[in-house]
């Protein structure tokens, strides 16, 4: 074989290998679990500018459900990030923080300790192994985390994420092919919407202790060592939740560990009144706060952080516009919830003056209102098309076209999705900031 042929074969071999790599990288990006329980948080974390975060919240799902980064920003100018993982025990948080501190130098790390008190969650930690590790980049921390979080026979299969995620071809959707807009801006926050009414826990008087699992304690120690070696103060805290007596004893034990190591520990289960907690309206389930709860808690927590640590107020700083955007999105989501929970069309209209497109039919007359301004109108058998912020709409009145759809309807197409109602006096509400359809209402 002459030199030329060898060179051509070499180039062909390189092209084949590069193609294989492109396929692996490309498909893994598409197939990557888009989980709000750890993966999206880490993916978003990597997109934060270096040394821009002042407070990293670490721990379990309580972190990303309970700490409203938008509230911390709006009320105190704190640039915070919720780097939690579902039911993440201390060894998961240890590797999360080890990875996080490679690019960020926060003023304080706030570590949520409640999982230590929940035996079921700690012992089943590997149920969430993929969510808690696949968001991380391929490096030693990721491998070490998978190792420490897996049984011996699970380690190698988990190293290859394809073993878990290739089956997702059945569930692929738009978000898998584009960047995740919301999470990037939500700074890890993933709020819960529902309301779960429960009795206020009465564990305030419990002072006894009960040890947590040894492995949990070992990694709590490592977390403290990590904060010392990186010279970043760490604050332990327990979010308010439906804590049981036994869990309260373990929380006390974790508090005693923190005490012994000179680390501050705040158990917010002893501060319900200061926070203003109302367990009949503020919980999403027994373990997580909802919108009402996380607002109160984050506001209260923010004041403590401001008081205890020297955290700058970045509001107005042009390098921190993404936190502005984050808080805006959170405000709109709260507003959307209020719209959904309202029964009054006039109230709804007052809540949709900015950032919403409203499609209305009143007495046979159709109107499209964008940001409070009428942008299009139509009458009988109307068909209105409208485009704004990358979204396309078709709003029309029509007769049903099939046996299953034979009534006179009013229909709104938002991009490729159709929402329809029986013809009458109607409102269709679209949140053009979050790009979410909110609801329809007959009036």
């Amino acid at each position: 074989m002459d030199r030329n042929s060898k060179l051509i074969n070499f180039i062909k071999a390189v092209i084949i290998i590069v193609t294989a790599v492109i396929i692996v990288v490309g498909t893994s990006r598409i197939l990557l679990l888009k989980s709000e329980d750890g993966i999206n948080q880490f993916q978003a974390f990597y997109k934060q500018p270096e040394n821009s975060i002042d407070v990293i919240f670490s721990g379990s799902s309580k972190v990303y459900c309970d700490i409203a980064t938008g509230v911390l920003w709006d009320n105190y100018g704190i640039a915070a990030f919720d780097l939690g993982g579902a039911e993440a025990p201390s060894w998961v948080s240890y590797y999360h923080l080890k990875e996080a501190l490679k690019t960020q130098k926060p003023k304080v790390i706030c570590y949520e300790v409640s999982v230590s008190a929940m035996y079921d969650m700690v012992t089943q930690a590997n149920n969430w192994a993929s969510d808690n590790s696949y968001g991380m980049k391929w490096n030693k921390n990721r491998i070490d985390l998978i190792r420490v979080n897996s049984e011996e026979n699970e380690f190698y299969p988990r190293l290859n994420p394809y073993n878990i995620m290739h089956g997702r071809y059945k569930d692929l959707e738009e978000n898998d092919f584009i960047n995740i807009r919301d999470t990037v801006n939500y700074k890890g926050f993933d709020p819960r919407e529902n309301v779960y009414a429960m009795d206020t826990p009465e564990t305030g008087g419990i002072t006894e202790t009960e040890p947590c699992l040894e492995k949990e304690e070992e990694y709590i120690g490592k977390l403290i060592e990590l904060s010392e070696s990186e010279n970043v103060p760490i604050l332990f805290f327990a979010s308010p939740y439906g804590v049981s007596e036994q869990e309260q004893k373990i929380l006390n034990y974790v508090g005693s560990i923190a005490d012994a190591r000179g680390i501050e520990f705040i158990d917010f289960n002893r501060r319900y009144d200061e926070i203003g907690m109302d367990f009949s309206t503020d919980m999403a389930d027994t373990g997580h706060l909802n919108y009402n709860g996380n607002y109160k808690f984050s506001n209260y927590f923010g004041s403590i952080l401001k008081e205890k640590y020297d955290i700058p107020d970045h509001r107005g700083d042009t390098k921190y516009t993404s936190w502005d955007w984050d808080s805006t999105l959170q405000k709109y989501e709260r507003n959307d919830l209020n719209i959904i929970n309202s029964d009054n069309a006039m109230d709804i209209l007052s809540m949709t003056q900015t950032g919403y497109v409203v499609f209305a039919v009143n007495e046979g007359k159709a109107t499209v209102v964008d940001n409070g301004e009428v942008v299009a109108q139509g009458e009988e058998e109307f068909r209105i098309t409208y485009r704004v912020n990358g979204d396309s709409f078709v709003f029309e009145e029509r007769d049903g076209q099939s046996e299953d759809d034979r009534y006179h309807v009013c229909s709104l197409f938002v991009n490729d999705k159709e929402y329809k109602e029986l013809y009458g006096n109607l409102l269709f509400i679209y949140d053009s900031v979050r790009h979410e359809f909110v609801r329809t209402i007959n009036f």
Partner: protein
Amino acid sequence: MSIISLQFFILFFIICAVFFILPAKIQWIWLLIVSIGFYYSQMYYSIAGLLFFFLIVLVNWAGSQFFDDNNSLRKIIYNSTLIFDVITLALFKYSKFLYEIILAAGKLFKADLTNEICGNIVYYTQENCPERISYFMLILIAYITDVYWGKSRALKNPAKTLLFTSYFPLMTSGPIVTFEQMENQLFGEKHHFSYDRCVRGMERVLWGLFKKMVISERLAVIVSRIYDYYEVYNGLYIFVAAALFAFQLYCDFSGLMDIVLGISEVLGIYLPENFNTPFYSVNLSEFWRRWHITLGAFLRDYVLYPIQRSKGFKNLRKWCKNHLGKGYEKRFNIPLYLSLLVSWFLIGLWHGGGWNYIFGVGLYMWAVIVFGELLTPVFAWIVRVLHINTECATYTFFLRLRTFILFMFGLSFFRAKTLKDGFLMWKSAFYRFNPWIFFDESFFNMGLDRREWGILVFGMILLFIVSYISQKCDVRDFIKKQNFVARLAVFAVLFVMIIVYGYYGADFNAADFIYGRF
């Protein structure tokens, strides 16, 4: 370690890199080390199991040293070695089956033949059966027989005998090779890296992975559902399951062979083909010449022909000539049918110690072939009387379909748990006539949804296209003639299909290779 695991392919890359760097003289030593390591992993890291395997090879190597013509003991030593091999194979593979037959026979005469020692032997051999014993014992038997017959030379070096027996691609499910096929390739020539050969080999590996992971495993979902619950999935479901199982087994076994032959080709060592588009056969004899070819060749060369050449059969042929007259071979060839009966019985038995195997892929196949032979004049008469055109594509299609149906029926017993289950299943096939299952979406509620069926149908269509092209030419030659971009596209499509649509990992219960258990 599974041959379709990521770990294996990473290791294989390293194996190749070292292999091509080494000088010719020691390349085989590297292959030996790798092969022993691979077999050790196949034996679940049992040192005792590995040592026992060494002992079997050592006995055969030692025996082969005494087969030269000048040795007066050569026949005794050959027979002793052969008996050792056959007993070893029988002990580990068929002791349970034999013990059950003895117990059942005892019951017929109301005698309890249960024996604790025998029971313990059965238990021990079942628990400690060396992996792939059905393959390497046949390779060894073929080897010592070839040496005894003078067709091959005896290897002086026991380590080389060990490599020939345990060459790692073979330690999955064959093919069953002869020393003649392997000698030069393993011990003679220097193997250099070749881009073309490497690409061709990997193309074949990808195609094998596609057949196994994309097609076979999906078919397995439907087949298992029907076979496991044939009492409720009755009527036409049974016919569907039997047909799909034939394709499942084909994709599973031939897929594995593609992987095995492909990785060996990358190393520059060509193994004999085990499949040649069998579903295009027009009769069952031809089918079996194109399905598991090396097993058929082994039985032909080392069982059928020796039987036919034996004294007893010579006498039988004489008897037939005297009593049935000249030309009896064309009318009723008893010696041929008897020798085939032995071969087919052994084929059935090789597949497993169970009457379902002996019947389904043994005696039933024999019966169809022999009756087909006997009825040839009747078929010819029908063709003549009805003026059937036998020179058209539809007639060929009919013959192929008939062959497939005959094969599928026998093979259905292979998949059944027992012979009784096999018959009960076919009884259930005639319990009711339920053609609506092809219209009411029943097949979408059996573990594969529409999307999964879509992938399966796409895979099957691709399989038929590739099989059709391979009738005319070598598919990889065909691909090679295309432009590099087209070749790259074929690679990319297969690669994406495998990593995305393949059955592996946490959410899929991918099974081992069916033929891997022998």
